[in-house]
């Protein structure tokens, strides 16, 4: 599955309607299949990140809070929802294997990486390993806000 965590929805509503402080930067991190994120997942420390070597940086890649990194925002009246997509992100294995990639998660920028709130998570549906020289590109990571 994929979705917003409860903590993520709480955080987003707080920012929009109660002027809570928004993250300056988000992070897109990769997690293994050891622990599946759910709506109840709160922080990055609750998941098992992909080992930070050979091209994957522990705690993820910075995602700026702007229209460059969140490059597509659509009001979809046909399906009664709004859609927000991230630009494409690519990781390339260099010098070894990046193993056991299953989930991508978007976090806030808490100074303590393990305490970063997981706002949104995506299940890639397969366990992916990148051999030396291979790359993984994630396209159209999408967030949908729907009227049920």
């Amino acid at each position, binding site marked *: 599955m994929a*979705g917003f965590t409860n903590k993520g929805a709480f955080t987003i509503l707080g920012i929009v309607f109660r002027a809570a402080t928004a993250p300056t930067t988000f992070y897109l991190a990769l997690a293994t299949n050891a622990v599946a994120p759910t709506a109840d997942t709160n922080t990055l420390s609750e998941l098992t990140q992909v080992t930070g070597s050979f091209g994957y940086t522990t705690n993820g890649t910075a995602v700026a809070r702007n229209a460059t990194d969140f490059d597509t925002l659509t009001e979809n009246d046909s399906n009664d929802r709004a859609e927000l997509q991230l630009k494409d992100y690519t990781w390339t294995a260099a010098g070894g294997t990046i193993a056991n990639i299953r989930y991508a998660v978007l976090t806030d920028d808490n100074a303590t990486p393990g305490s970063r709130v997981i706002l949104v998570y995506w299940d*890639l549906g397969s366990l992916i390993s990148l051999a030396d020289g291979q790359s993984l590109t994630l396209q159209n*990571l*999408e967030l949908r806000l729907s009227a049920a």
Partner: protein
Amino acid sequence: MEKPLLPLDPTKPVRWTVRNADGTIAQEGTALPAFTFVEKLNEATSEKKEEDQSQET
């Protein structure tokens, strides 16, 4: 570079592609978007009323 082979699927807009060093595709897949629902206030109110009425009877 080899273009993604999987057709676009509006229900699974997220696409991932593993490429070899020469750009050929080794593996690819699609995934669901992250979504949440905004509960309609009138429906929620309506359900609450029905629930209250059933408890009264």
